[in-house]
Structure formats: C-alpha cells, structure tokens
C-alpha cells in the first residue's frame, strides 16, 4: 500500500490533496497481450505466459471541483431544480445532507430539490466519498453554488425591475418586488438568456452563504429523500439493475491468494446452453442467462483448472511477518537519554487483526457497451476513480467511459475500487450484451480489500511527578491516521512504518485511527496504573486541547466515572478512552461484565460524547454515531479474518460474526453541538474510542491486560 498516511484534514480545498491508498487489482484488457493457446483433448486448452504479478498502487481521490454554477445546478423550465454532485450515497446520509445544503441556500423546500449523485456524465468531480470529507468540503461547495444561483436570481430581478438589490430577498424559490408585487423565480431564470449566460460563470468563492444563526433547513433533521423507495423495495440498488437481454456474470477465482492459472479446459463450459466463456490472461469468467447457470459453468471450469501455488503466511504468523518486512527495519527509539533518565519506563506491543467491511450488499456492477463506449453502474465510493480504472483496463479515453452509482448497500471505506465493474465490462464485451456481475458473500470476504492488520509498539517514560516525559509510537503496516498523540509530552515521536501485509489492504471506516487509538488509549491506562492514578485524572493532566477535554469531561460526568471506577464490583469493570481524528472529538466510557463460565466479555453500557462542530442534521448524526459505535463492537470483540495457505478460512457470516441485535448494549450518546465551529464528518471518528475503552474496562474487571483486537480473554 503506497499511501496509507491518510492525513487528518488538509487545510486546502482540493480533493486531490487527500488520498487513501488501496491495493489495486492491475487489470489489463488491452488488445496486445499474448496467450498461448493449445488444443488439448476435447477442448480448447489455454496455457498462459508469465504470471501477472500483483502490483500495488496508491489510490487518489482527486479531481477538480465544480467550475461553474450550471455544472452544479440546473433550473428547469418546468420549475424542477436539479443539483449535481460527485458524492455517493451508501447509507451515510450524503443525499439528505447535500439536498439540505442546496435547499438552504436556494431558499426552497427540501422537496423542491432533485439531487443527481455520482453519474460521471452529469456531475462535477467532488472526489471520492471517503475520509469524512462530504461535510467539510462538498457541503460548502454545494452551498456556494446554490448561494451563487440565489444571488444571480436577485441580480437579474433587480436589473429588470431597476430596484435596489438590497431590497430584494428570495423566499420560497422566488424574489418578490415589495413595491410592485412582481415576482421572479428559478423557473423564470431558466427562460432568461442573460441568466443562462451568467450561470455558466465560475462560482465566486467569496459568495455569502447563510450564517448558522439564520439556518432554516440545515441544523434540522431531514429524513432520507428516497426513504419511501427503501421501504417498498422499489429502489434499485446496483445489484438490482436489469437490462433487456442482460446476462449474469461470474468469475473463476483462484483457490488461493497468489495462485496462477497454468491451464484450463474451456470446452465443458462452452458446451452449456446460453453460456459465454471468456478467457483473457489470468481472467476467466462466464456470462449466462441466470446466476444458477453461470455458477454451474464456473464449477465446470474450476474442475479443469490447473494452478501453481505460492507460499502464503497464515494469520498465526502475521505479526512476525509484519515486523520482519517492516520497510527500512524497525526504527529505534530516538530518545535514549530521556528513557534512561525516566523514573519509570513502559514498553508494550499491540496487535490488530485483519477485518472485512462486509457491507450487506456485496460488490455489484452492470456493464453496457455501445460500440467503443462503456457504461458501468456499480456500487462504489469512488466514481471518477472507477472511471479511470475502467479506462486504463480497456485502453479507452476517459470520456468513453461513464460510471453511474445508484445509492448502494453500504461501503464503510470498503468500496473505493471498481474491480467488479472491470470484470463485468470484460464479460459484457465478450457477450455483446449487458452483463450484471454480483459478487457472492464469499467473494466479498475473500477478494475485497481488508482493513490492514497492525503491529504497534509503544515505549514511554514517566518522570518523578508521574507525568509523561517521552513517547515513541510505531505503527507497523496499518497506517498513519490518528497516529499523533493529543497528549502533552515534551519528547515525542509517532511514526508509521510500511510493511508487506499478506492480504490485499485498503481503507475502512476511520482506517488506522482505530488501531492507533486502541494502542495509545490502552497504553495510557497502563501508564496511569503505573503511577497509581485514575485514568481520567492522568489523561486530563496531559491534555490541553479544550475540545477534547470537553468531550472527555462530559462523558465522565454523564457516566459517573469517578464513583464507578472507585467502586470495584466482582466481574464488572469500567473503562474510558478518548481521541480526535478528522477534526472531530470523541470520548467513551463503558461498562463490561465478564461471564465467569467462559470468560466472555459482555459490553453492558456505552456512554459516548461526540463533537463535530456545528451539527447539520441531528438525527442522522446520531444514527451515524450509533451505527459507528455498534459496527466498532465487531472488530473490538470478535471479528478476525483467519487465513492459511492463501485461503480465507472464515469467509461467511456464520464463521465471521458481525454485530447483531443482541450485541447492542445500553447506549447513552451525547452530541455536543458547536454552532460556532465549521461542521465536519461524523461517520468515522466515533468508532475509535470503543475498543480501547472496552479493553480498559476488561482490565478493571479482571486484572488482565488484553493488548490485541479483537479483545478476548482466555477461556
């Protein structure tokens, strides 16, 4: 993975400045590769030349923002207002939020705005939907575009009526002349030649957006605009798309990671009725009238396939492997003098396993060719990135590729890539018909990228007053998000060291901030214990950032921390953790119970306080925080990808358990609203405090320090 240093918030406005690396699948379906074809037995035997080596590249979320008002908004002569954005909706609420943003500035009802999302043929490139960037960057971009249109409406009306523009105000989508009673609406704008010309002007970055105090729509809860279609089943998710004559695709997967196809007999599958078989380099797939037939064809192919295997480390050897392959070696502590002077020195390793996002809708794509132009509709967080990925794979110009992203069934950082689209497009090209390819759950668990595993090593010194004197923090392999300590330490260094993770790696909700917070916040508890301090007092003694102090103090107070920590009850424990990432602040206090029989950890109560500046939509923010916390309970307590000999051993929901209703503890969520501060995203940071607070509570309950995620006590 080239760029995992998922920096917190870039001050600039350029989506390209931010990037989050994902291990890419290097497809190449250009025309000039060589495959040696042999006839063998009854069928056609294809023997391939040298194996395509997996290649890793950093992803980019980039692209310029909307240059003109008309690329952001369209006013129909029928009165319909359409707003365009390159952002996607995967359940996080961007559709409602961006609709709100436009409606607020246009001074119209939410229902008057139609939002077109993520169709590369229609929308401006707002970059990848990731890194909690919609709220701090795209909301302002949409607001500015809409505000510019509103100002234009006033401008044109004031010119036509020769009225002073300061006397004019937009209300309910129109300007009214207070004197004559005339009115001029967005519908009129569409019919006005001067307006049409002015709409093609760039959005003036200095345009006045509505101050928080005057918000009528932003700051209030707005339900999902398409919620009705979600409860009736009418909404078409990417895996629901159908076209006349469409076939269903399926791809032959290697039996193990890194295995190379050396030979295959295509004949049995070719003999099946209605089945199209494609063999192109290492890619072998089929398209058939039903999924059932496609599967049968793939099974027939799999029986004849011959593979060459490579050795692959297992999950048991993971941390040794990561340490051994640390790029440039494992760096030494740069503060040897401080360490030798310290009154006490602590040093610990923390481990975080690989996990999967497992969105409920697995990757799915529909590909359609029309001569040399390609349209792919798929569930992805990165529409423009997928367009490039497709263009590269098929050696097409980008303007020959259109990517459309219908609202899809969950991403969580797991859908930054378009491999399913490339595969569908390859099959569709061979079939000469549209092809829908829908990954199975097993494929999703195995071939989607994973949240990287981490080996984290921390060494810190305490002085005679019980305060931190030096701090050295190393994250091997998983990334630099949230790596800097928010605590005051005179000598400190935190760094991310790349390694060669054995699995395909990429982003995940909050990415490495979860692992880094887990290690740091658990270690802070160990340090507090080393000087016999209350973990809350110890943290506050090292904290200056007022926003972080505020969430921590509020959480502790709501939870009744001081009493509950002091009052030890058998089998019960409390723990806390806090942190900051992507401009927002979080603190959590939890209570756990240890079931004496199996030593199982039960999380009983989570109190979390979260602050992300001004809250744009209270209900959705709360839903995101709740969802994030509960999702985080999975990797905190039970989720772990097991692999051996290049094979995932638990690629199913039966063997990879994710949170269900019964796992939901009592939740006390408190959002600190700061209308005086710019809004930032809320769908990621709430996850980071969950796991360390649990591990600390487990220690409080049992006296055992668990330094790995998932947090488990020996039975």
């Amino acid at each position, binding site marked *: 993975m080239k760029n995992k240093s998922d920096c917190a918030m870039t001050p600039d406005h350029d989506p390209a400045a931010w990037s989050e690396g994902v291990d890419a699948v290097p497809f190449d379906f250009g025309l000039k590769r060589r495959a040696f074809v042999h006839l063998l037995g009854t069928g056609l035997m294809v023997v391939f030349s040298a194996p395509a080596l997996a290649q890793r590249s950093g992803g980019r979320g980039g692209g310029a923002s909307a240059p003109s008002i008309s690329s952001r908004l369209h006013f129909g002569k029928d009165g319909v207002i359409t707003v365009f954005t390159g952002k996607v909706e995967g359940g996080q609420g961007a559709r409602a939020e961006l609709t709100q943003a436009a409606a607020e500035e246009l001074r119209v009802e939410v229902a008057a705005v139609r939002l077109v999302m993520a169709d590369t043929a229609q929308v401006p490139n707002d970059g990848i939907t990731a890194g909690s960037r919609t709220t701090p960057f795209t909301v302002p971009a949409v607001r500015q575009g809409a505000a510019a249109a509103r100002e234009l409406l006033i401008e044109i009306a004031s010119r036509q009526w020769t009225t002073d523009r300061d006397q004019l105000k937009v209300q309910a989508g129109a300007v009214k002349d207070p004197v004559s009673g005339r009115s001029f609406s967005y519908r009129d704008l569409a019919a006005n030649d001067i307006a049409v010309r002015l709409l093609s002007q760039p959005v003036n970055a200095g345009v006045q957006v509505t101050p928080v105090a005057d918000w009528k729509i932003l700051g209030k809860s707005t339900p*999902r605009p398409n919620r009705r279609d979600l409860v009736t089943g009418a909404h078409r998710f990417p895996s629901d798309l159908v076209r006349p004559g469409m076939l269903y695709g399926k791809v032959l997967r290697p039996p193990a990671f890194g295995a190379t196809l050396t030979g295959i007999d295509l004949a049995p599958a070719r003999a099946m009725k209605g089945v199209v078989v494609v063999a192109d380099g290492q890619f072998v797939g089929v398209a058939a009238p039903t999924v*059932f037939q496609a599967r049968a064809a793939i099974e027939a192919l799999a029986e004849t396939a011959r593979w060459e295997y490579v050795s692959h480390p297992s999950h048991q050897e993971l941390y040794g492997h990561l340490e051994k392959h640390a790029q440039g070696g494992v760096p030494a502590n740069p503060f040897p003098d401080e360490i030798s002077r310290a009154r006490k020195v602590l040093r610990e390793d923390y481990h975080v396993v690989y996990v999967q*996002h*497992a969105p*409920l809708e697995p990757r799915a794509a529909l590909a359609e060719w029309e001569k040399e132009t390609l349209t792919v509709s798929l569930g992805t967080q990165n529409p423009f990135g997928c367009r490039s990925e497709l263009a590269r794979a098929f050696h097409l110009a980008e303007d020959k590729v259109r990517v459309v992203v219908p609202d*899809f069934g969950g991403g969580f950082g797991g859908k930054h890539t378009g491999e399913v689209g490339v595969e569908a497009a390859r099959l569709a090209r061979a079939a000469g018909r549209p092809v829908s390819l829908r990954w199975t759950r097993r494929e999703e668990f195995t071939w989607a990228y994973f949240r990287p595993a981490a080996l984290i090593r921390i060494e810190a010194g305490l002085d005679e007053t019980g305060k931190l004197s030096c701090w050295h923090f190393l994250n091997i392999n998983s990334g630099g998000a949230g790596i800097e300590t928010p605590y005051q330490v005179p000598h400190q260094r935190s760094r991310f060291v790349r390694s060669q993770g054995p699995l395909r790696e990429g982003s995940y909700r909050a990415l490495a901030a979860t692992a880094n917070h887990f290690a740091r916040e658990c270690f802070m508890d160990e340090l507090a214990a080393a000087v016999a301090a209350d973990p809350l007092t110890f943290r506050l003694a090292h904290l200056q950032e007022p926003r972080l102090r505020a969430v921590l103090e509020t959480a502790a107070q709501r939870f009744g921390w001081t009493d509950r920590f002091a009052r030890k009850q058998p089998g019960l424990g409390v723990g806390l953790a806090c942190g900051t990432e992507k401009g927002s602040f979080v603190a959590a206090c939890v209570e756990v119970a240890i079931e004496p029989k199996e030593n199982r950890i039960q999380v009983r109560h989570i109190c979390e306080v979260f602050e992300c500046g001004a809250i744009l939509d209270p209900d959705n923010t709360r*839903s995101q925080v709740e*969802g994030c916390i509960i999702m985080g309970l999975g990797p905190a307590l039970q989720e772990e990808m097991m692999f051996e000999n290049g094979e995932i051993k638990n690629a*199913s*929901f039966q063997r990879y358990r994710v949170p269900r209703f019964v796992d939901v503890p009592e939740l006390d969520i408190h959002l600190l609203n700061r209308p005086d501060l710019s809004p930032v995203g809320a769908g990621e940071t709430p996850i980071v405090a969950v796991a360390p607070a649990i591990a600390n509570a487990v220690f409080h309950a049992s006296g055992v320090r668990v330094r790995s995620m998932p947090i488990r006590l020996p039975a």
Partner: protein
Amino acid sequence: MDTTISFEVNGELKTVTTHPSRPLLDVLREDLGLTGTKYGCGEGQCRACTVLLEGKAVAACVTQIATVENKKVRTIEGLAGGDTLHPVQQAFLDGAGSQCGYCTPGMVMELVAVLNASPNPAEAEVLARLGRHLCRCCNYPNLKRSIRLSLRR
C-alpha cells in the same frame, strides 16, 4: 433438468420453467423482476432475502424453487396497497429504520410475519426473531424504534 413450477406471488399465479434446485430468491429476482428481495449471503445467515411463504418468514436464498410449488409467496413488493404503505413499512419510514436500506425489505417482511402470527407479541420475542437479521449499517437503535412503532400500530 428443468421442470415447470406454478406458485402464487403477491396474489398472482406465476409459472416458471427452470431447474428445480434454483433458489426462490433467484427466481423472484431474475425471472419475475422482483428485485426488492435482497441477496446478502446466500446461506441463511443474514435474512436480507426474507419473504413470506404461506404467511411464514423464510430465507428465499435457501428455499429451493421446487418446494414452493402451489404455495403462496409474498414479497416486499406485495405489501403496500397502492399509495398506502403497510403499517410496518410506515413504521420503518417514521422510525428511520433505513440507513442504506439494503436490510429493510427483509426486516419488514419478518416483522409482518411475526405480527400475522400473533397481533400482540412480546417485544423480547419480536427482537429474538429479528435477531436473525443483519444490518451492517448497524442501525439497530433506529430499527428497535421502528419495531416498537410497528407493534403499536
């Protein structure tokens, strides 16, 4: 080999000629165009594919088409009466039961089955039934709210 199977879907008689061991889920989605029922795992673990078979909730992904011969199936598409939503759908709408909404049809159908079987079930019993369903958005608090709203209607 293919066989011809007739069954009722949302009150209409349907006849398909297909392989008898194809999942009901595939037939609904591919042959009958009823894509409201979702695939989440294909092995009975997530219940995104829940439909009513003779009024009972079943996972359509592990129900072979041959077993529904002459039976009645109801899917999410057959729930609302024209513009009027079924009370459970309305409760999910009012309770913000959907984040991405991919789990919604399965959850709604399960709840409809529970309420059909007993009009006043205990909440714990209902949650136990819904406990088989996965929501990866982990929208469980809003789902609980939607369930409570359904029970009150």
